[in-house]
């Protein structure tokens, strides 16, 4: 069954810089903006781009993600031909075991790609915050007769964190450097690539060098081979939320800069997420709620300022929540004061607890238990 495009979504990363947030969950399953998980953004973009043949390559703590995505019906990706396939690491006759990097994981699952005989393979990551119509990029790829197209965004802070691309006036890639000390431009790779299927095969099956990673290995190799590589200039909002700080900032952008993602203006390009099947939230007698996002099933008695609450959160009487992100099903007892915190799912905060921080701090049950022990 022939498909023009097959998308491969890499969701293996642990996201170790997110600390306790990803202690028990893969980074793409991390909660975002109250109702969402990071994976929603890539799946919704695929759905809105009408690309419905999707391989999801998993590795680290895949259970939560698997049970969340299921058949993909939330994103209308449960189609008869194609749809969502979970690609897990496996042992083969030649003893390949663990995925050694992004490119290596795609290499392991080339057979999945081949069964659809696609013209193009779209490589995506499961942990970015953005809304993108991939067809625009693919159309440019076709127009440019490119072998590879790399999506780029303009970096505003510290380009050394990213893979930096240098483009010429035709948008052809002149150079590429992973995390350069002296960046040659402010255009960074988003880790989103369109490959001609044949080229992808050639590059991944190269015997002469170790091929593990797209950024570190494949792209430099392609440049060396003088393949036709183009950059696609993505103009929209894009965040790689690799650190606690950047995750917090991207969340708060929903409140402070509503024009970035436009989540409340969503009829054309909705971010789809699995419904929690909870009743609307109930604000019992809080008179002070401002600049905040609140999800279904919350029960609120206290004050909420400039914060984001996921579903099923209890905020008791006399609490003050400020500049914080509260994940799902967190219960907060009476008279707590919380400021600059990210409270991880299912945490229980006893009455009269004060969690005021100068910089953003992740709090989970373990943290709370330790705090309790110290107080005793």
């Amino acid at each position, binding site marked *: 069954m022939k498909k023009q495009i097959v998308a491969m979504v890499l969701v293996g990363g642990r996201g170790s810089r997110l600390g306790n947030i990803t202690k028990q969950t893969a980074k793409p399953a991390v909660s975002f903006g109250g109702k969402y998980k990071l994976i929603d953004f890539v799946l919704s973009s695929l759905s809105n781009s009408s690309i419905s043949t999707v391989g999801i390559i998993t590795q680290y703590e895949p259970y939560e993600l698997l049970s969340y995505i299921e058949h993909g019906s939330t994103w209308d990706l449960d189609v008869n031909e194609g749809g969502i396939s979970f690609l897990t690491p496996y042992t083969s006759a030649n003893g390949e075991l663990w995925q050694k990097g992004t490119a290596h994981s795609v290499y392991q699952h080339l057979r999945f790609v081949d069964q659809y005989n696609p013209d193009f393979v779209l490589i995506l990551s499961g942990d970015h915050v953005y809304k993108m119509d991939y067809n625009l990029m693919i159309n440019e790829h076709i127009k440019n007769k490119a072998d590879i197209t790399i999506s780029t965004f303009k970096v505003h802070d510290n380009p050394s964190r990213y893979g930096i691309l240098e483009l010429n006036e035709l948008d052809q890639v002149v150079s590429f450097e992973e995390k350069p000390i002296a960046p040659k431009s402010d255009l960074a790779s988003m880790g989103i690539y369109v490959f001609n299927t044949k080229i992808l095969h050639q590059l991944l099956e190269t015997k002469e060098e170790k091929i593990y990673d797209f950024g570190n290995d494949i792209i430099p190799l392609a440049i060396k081979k003088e393949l036709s590589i183009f950059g696609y200039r993505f103009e929209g909002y894009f965040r790689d939320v690799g650190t606690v700080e950047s995750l917090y900032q991207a969340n708060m952008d929903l409140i402070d800069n509503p024009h970035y993602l436009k989540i409340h203006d969503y009829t054309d390009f909705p971010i789809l997420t699995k419904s929690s099947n909870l009743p609307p939230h109930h604000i019992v007698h809080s*008179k002070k709620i401002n600049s905040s996002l609140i999800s279904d099933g919350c029960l609120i008695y206290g004050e909420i300022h400039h914060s984001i609450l996921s579903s099923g959160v209890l905020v008791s009487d006399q609490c003050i929540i400020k500049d914080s992100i509260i994940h799902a099903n967190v219960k907060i007892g009476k008279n707590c004061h919380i400021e600059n915190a990210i409270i991880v799912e299912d945490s229980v905060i006893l009455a009269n607890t004060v969690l005021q921080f100068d910089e953003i701090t992740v709090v989970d049950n373990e943290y709370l238990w330790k705090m309790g022990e110290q107080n005793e």
Partner: protein
Amino acid sequence: MNKQMFAIVDATFKENLEQLTLHRMPGALPFSGKYRLIDFTLSNLRNSRIINVAIFPYGNYRSLQDHVGSGKRWDLDRRRDGLFILPPKNLYIPPDEMITFQRLFEHIEFLRRSTQDYAVITGANIVWNIDYNDCLEEHINKNADITEIMYQQIRLKTFIISKKLLLEYIETYDSLEYKTLLDLVEKAPNLNVNIYKHKNYTRTINDTFNYLKSNLDMLRFDIGMTIFREDRPVYSKEKTAPPAKYLNHASIDNSMISSGCIVDGQIHNSMIGRDVIIKKGAIVENSFIMSNCVIEENAHLNYTILDKQTVVKQNTVLEGTLRIPYVSQKEQIISPFNGIRVLLVASESYPFIKTGGLADVIGSLSRNLARQGIDTTVIIPLYKKIRDSFGESLKIEFTKTIIYGEKRYKVSIYGYLYKKVKYYFVDNFDFFDYEGIYGLENDTDRFAFFNKTVVDLLDDLDPYDLIHIHDWHTSLIPILIDNSSHKGVNTLLTIHNIDYQGIAKNEIINKLGIKHFVFKEEHINFLDIGINTATKLSTVSPTYKEELKYEYYGKNLTHSLMRRERDFYGILNGISSSFNPETDKSLKVNYSKETIALKLDNKIYLQEKMSLPQNKNTFVIGMVSRLVEQKGFDLILQVLEDILRDRDIQFVLLGAGDEYYVNEFTKIAERFPNQVKLNIGYDAANPNIIYGGADVFLMPSRFEPCGLGQMIALRYGTLPIVRKTGGLGDTVFKYDPLTEKGNGFTFNNYDSHEMKHVILGAYEIYKHNQLVWNSLIVRAMKSDNSLVKSTQKYIELYKVIKET
């Protein structure tokens, strides 16, 4: 998986939810922000692990179909069994109180194929959380034939019955005297009926009061937690909206707010649906706001139900009450109320000229509109009778020349201000200067000319927001407006009586100068033209509006009315506050609902006036009616003697009409001189003596668009016995011994034996259960059929027409 039970979801009956159910069935009504009413029933079925479910819908079930889809949300998309939507095959069966055996017979295959032994039959409009397995267990333990599930004193139209027994009833529906399970439980002998009492919060959504109340009930924690339980969750169609967003000026207490909302205003004690925008300075109190509404700056809402996509403009104030909430219509744009100018056009209006109920309606509606601040004008023809009695106080305000056919006619327009209502009378020697009003050879010409004059007169008057026309006599006004410089002015045609339609020769269209008219037949039909050209239509009760969609009632106009279904409203007339037993001078003794014992003195007075034996214990049946076939006199003649024979019953009839009926009743009166008295001729005696003195008031009409007699009887505590049709069905609710509810007695079929059965049933209660009887009188007197209420409904409809 439940191998014992399958389910029938009854969505066949239509409740009085006004414009909310114009576009959807009650089951598809939004509830508690993100749910639809039917979610509760489907989730209860799912949580009872029932997997074989048939929904029997009525009317427009698109939004229901859209919502339930394949039933996946409730685990009902299955290979075997699953969800079935079984539409009506016979569109001519009017809806009943609940699903009939006849309607079930249409899909008897579904029942035959079901492998489960028991059926649960339930409605789509109940808010509750119940495990049907508990009901089945009790049903089996008590060895019941049928189990009815009730909450407190409320019948929930929910039953458990074995498939075998249910099939028996369905297969023999045409020979049974019960039409529904409700009937069966009430009447069937030798049936082991078990009542299962459900204990947790339950409310059936059958009017706007219950709808708003139950939504607001969800804000009470003790109630909400019995409905939204973790062990038996309520499932709804999956939709995606971002979390609700609060801006800097938001202030909220005790409210539930759904996803996608953007709130910068104040919300108190309200339920807010998805994607609602509430702007700075806006105040929303005690309201249910459905999805995608916008409440603009400084608007103030109290006790309102806003249908989807309603926009409330800046500074608008909307104020309802819990009993009578303000209800918007889908996509309505509501601006601050800065007055509406309304023109009523009719053939008669009280107190100037009256031949029937129409004059009363026009007279009282116009007066009440003016009282509520609406700038109101009425135009009627100047008949000779009006000139004779009012001529001296009328002043000529305009003179016009009207071209009709080949001729030019001189018309004088007289003006008069009556109780804040501006009246204009159209005077023309050729057409109106007769003794009679109707029944002249050239009636159609006369009223066509009247219509033409009214439209020409619009040139001279300040513009109106709306022209409210009545019956065939004014039905050509919309098409004349379309052919004039006033094209675009909104019209509302109210149908009081569909029997008179104004059939005329085609040449009238040419005489009126209407161009490009497509003639369908050799004759034109005024009312049909009106129905097809007016902006909106209404009739005088919600039930009659539904009935008109069936040929038995709607006759030759059924097709046109069906075509206009979405612009068609039913608004019940009301009665004036001057009908009041506490102040009525024509009564012997005044009384109120606190002093109903005094009513008996009026019975003695009535008997005395009618020269009947005086006995306060005698059961007195009263009637005030025209003696015509429509009013059900054939039924009465068939069984009256049976009813009277050897019983302590008296029958008093006041009215005038067909000679045949007069003669027949005279014969009976001669045979039963101590029990039957006729008072023939409309003005023969004051009807209020009957309203005050009788025990019951009989109205077995074959059809009854609205009916005022039963409303007056209710107010005087005289219990109505009526056939459940038209306005009778909207005002009289039968006494139900199971629930101790109701304000009268009703029967369904136009059948003399059914009527007799109900009359004798009432007689039995009167004779043997005075306590129940007195409570019925009190409930009857509490019924609210006031003009204020009906005028309010008209004003709301005027606003809808003006704003959409």
